[in-house]
């Protein structure tokens, strides 16, 4: 008897035509240091079950985090009650399976052999290095180690049973620097499942540099500037931009990419791919509908190649799903997986030279407030530097940058060669942009 047989039996009894469970099991550990001592230690065993089922062609959903007979019955009862009130007529699918799956390994056995002492030693080394590199660093606001092992299972009444296991670890740290009356903070994040890749001293150097470099800054004149955007900034903007390739948004008339497939929507320097099969910790070989994933360009040399589909939107459009059905609930949403911006040939220094005079934007904050995902307009609190005579100049304090996502990607003059993979699962490089509006003095 399988663990979930009871649920499938009860569902059948209740008249549900097809049902599916997505089970997430995880074990994670978080350890943070403050002033050389363990400040927080967190050990978690996570478990959650998302269930959905079809009754008279309508789909209901329910979820829980405890598994027993009572919960199985509760899930069935809620699925039935929820399905009964659905009015949406979109076709809905509990998938029978793809012909072939290309498995990608996201679980590193060797990582499980690393002792807790080795992990702690790197954390202590990180905190120590942050304090000792530069006198202007007055505080280490946090140094944290986390790791997780996750098992993701999709099982349904059509015989599909898929399991993907993964593990990864992260080190995160933040430091505070002071000079005169000015206080600046900076943080960074490292994610991998290869323990040997993390070097605490190198990581500390990077954080300290990005923090102290901000000291002594002031706002620049409000104006339009030629700009270089740091890969972290590009990552944030690119995620929101590619959100418009979501086929549901297109079908429901709320995407900026409506009717644009096959057309040039960005600078010919821009190629953005969805790469779920890339060999890294972000890989997904089946999506949350159980469909096999594959790599594909979304934008190629500035031309929009495809929208991203799940089973429902693909059926409505009369095309094949692109394997981008992600999320929980009764109907799966659509999302990109590992997004990758194709690198150019020029170094960051060469981009500065090409700008001559302009701004270098290294960070943006408050994306949930300052970026309107629908209109693509953004106005964001930013940090960065002036670019003067082709070189990185003085830091900028309290500025905002504003623009529109469609325009920014049309205005790309060059893509840098500084490939940077962010912990959010995006690979991006610096971009040289024709113009950006800066509000300062």
């Amino acid at each position, binding site marked *: 008897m399988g663990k979930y047989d009871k649920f499938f039996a009860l569902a059948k009894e209740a008249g549900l035509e097809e049902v599916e469970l997505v089970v997430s099991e995880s074990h994670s550990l978080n350890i943070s240091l*403050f002033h050389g*001592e*363990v*400040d*927080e*230690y*967190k*050990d978690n*065993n*996570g478990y959650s079950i998302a269930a959905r089922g079809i009754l008279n062609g309508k789909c*209901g*959903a*329910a*979820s*829980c*985090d*405890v598994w027993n007979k009572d*919960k199985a019955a*509760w899930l069935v009862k809620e699925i039935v*009650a*929820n399905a009964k*009130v*659905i*009015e*949406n*007529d979109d076709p809905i699918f509990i998938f029978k399976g793809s012909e072939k799956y290309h498995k990608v390994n996201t679980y590193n056995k060797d990582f499980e052999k690393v002792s807790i002492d080795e992990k702690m030693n790197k954390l202590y080394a990180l905190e120590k290095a942050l304090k000792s590199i530069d006198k202007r660093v007055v*505080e280490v*606001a946090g140094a944290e180690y986390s790791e997780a092992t996750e098992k993701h299972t999709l099982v349904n009444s059509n015989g599909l049973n898929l399991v993907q296991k993964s593990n990864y670890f992260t080190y995160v740290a933040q430091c505070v620097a002071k000079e005169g009356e000015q*206080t*600046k*903070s900076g943080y960074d994040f490292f994610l991998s499942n290869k323990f040997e890749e993390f070097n605490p001293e190198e990581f500390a150097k990077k954080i300290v540099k990005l923090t102290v470099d901000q000291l002594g800054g002031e706002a620049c004149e*409000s104006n339009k500037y030629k700009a270089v955007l740091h890969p972290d900034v590009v990552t944030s903007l690119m995620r929101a931009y590619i959100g418009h390739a979501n086929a549901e948004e297109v079908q*429901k*008339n*709320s995407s*900026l990419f409506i009717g644009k497939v096959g057309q040039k929507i960005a600078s010919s320097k821009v190629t953005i791919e969805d790469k779920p099969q890339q060999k890294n910790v972000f890989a997904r070989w089946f999506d949350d509908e159980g469909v096999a994933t594959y790599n594909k360009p979304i934008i190629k040399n500035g031309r929009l190649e495809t929208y991203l589909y799940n089973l429902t939107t693909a059926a409505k459009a009369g095309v094949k799903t692109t394997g981008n059905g992600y999320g929980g609930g*009764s*109907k799966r949403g659509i999302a990109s997986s590992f997004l990758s911006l194709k690198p150019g040939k020029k170094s960051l220094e060469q981009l500065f030279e090409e700008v001559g005079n302009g701004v270098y934007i290294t960070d943006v*904050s*408050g994306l*949930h*407030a*300052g970026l309107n995902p*629908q*209109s*693509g*307009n*953004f*106005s*964001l*609190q930013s940090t960065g530097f002036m670019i003067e005579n082709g070189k990185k100049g003085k830091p900028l304090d*309290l*500025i*905002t*940058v*504003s623009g*529109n996502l469609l325009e920014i990607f049309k205005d790309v003059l060059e893509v840098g060669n500084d490939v940077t993979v962010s912990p959010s699962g995006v690979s991006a490089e610096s971009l040289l942009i024709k113009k950006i*509006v800066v*509000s300062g*003095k």
Partner: protein
Amino acid sequence: MISKKLAIEVLNAALETGADYAEIFYEDSSAHSVMIENGKVETTSSNSLCGVGLRLLKNNQCVYGYTNELTKKGLLALANSLNKSFHDKRIVTVTKLDMIKCKNRNPVTRSYDDVPVEEKIALIREGIDEIQSMKDPRIVRTFGVFADNKRFVAVFNSKEKWFKRTTEFGRMVFQVIAADQNGFETGFEGPGAQHAIDYFRTEKVNPKKVARKAAETALKMLTAAECPSGKMPVVIGNGWGGVLFHESCGHPLEASAVAKGLSCFSENKIGDYIASPIVSAVDDSTMPGEWGSIDIDDEGNPGTKRLLIKNGKLNDYMIDDLNGRRMDRQGNGACRRQNYRYIPTSRMSNTYICNGKSTPEEIIKATKLGLYAVGFNGGSVDPTTGEFNFGCSEAYIIRDGKIAEPVKGATLIGKGFEILKKIDMVANDLDLAQGMCGASSGSIRTNVGQPTLRVSEVTVGGRGGELK
């Protein structure tokens, strides 16, 4: 639910290796939501959460873990795994558990368990019908959501106390997307409260009014020009305008930042002027039925009203017991978490700037050229530097003391300790607005609030060039 006997056994196992405090947080909650999109019921879902979080403290150290194995075996295994972090002799033993009784200021007269989904659908449908009756072809997509949540919590701790708490709340959300040849705009309204569903059929809050407001905002912003940029006087509207204080000052006044000396408003500033003398501010978790209210916090301290700023002077903080240890203070009822998966810490509840003496009309009239910001998308802050930002979803230019053309895409930025000193007029129309606040202990319900007020100079980011 777990028995007192089992709780005592688990606490004593947790304390075996020298922890000075142990606490069991048991949660059993359920949530339901239904969404109508473009006039049709699109999704409904039910979600149940049930688990235990176990917290051990020793001096300033915190060890935490959670489990869904709610049996004796599962809970003792968790206690015996967490206590391995300490290596001393037992210093605390629990022999009994006395119940803390607390006031119930937030009773929900009719439980959401007893509200059929059809009734929630009918409520939302009224709002959607109102939007459809506007017959504006520019409205391309509408969403209406009703979400409710019932949360039972029981906490047992090594101070030999225990308590239980049940909270219920509902939220009604309307979102409208409008489009014309120039692009898209959205309007959003989402009132919520710890009240029964009848609350959403009152004169102040009802589906027709709320849905229409969301649609009108989306349509108005469609015709709005790009917001100018640069430094300018900004009049910030009541209610949602309180997100300014929430970001710029509220977060830096949480003990989680203050205790470690990581706040721009550190303890040596108590009694100093950190704001203009016409500014007083409060965090009050005792307001009956309000979105951010709690009767008792996650550590068993009763909800309180904290006067954070008194006539411009720094007066108090939001404090939890653990951070209180570093500050030599007791927790003041501010310890909260999203659910059993999070380590609790000091958080805001209903946070607002108090009424002043001007009227909103006087403030507009006294402003020759500036920005009037009334709708907001939220924002963020770095409590260490005080640097904050928040985005405006609805704003207007003020010309010669009158509200003039609408503008979009405005983001206000600054440093909390500078902006509070620049508040030069405060009106008497205090209102609250409901939001979700995210921080280390998860996403929790908080109210922001303020009367209409003016800041003499704020850096405004927008794409519309210089303000003329």
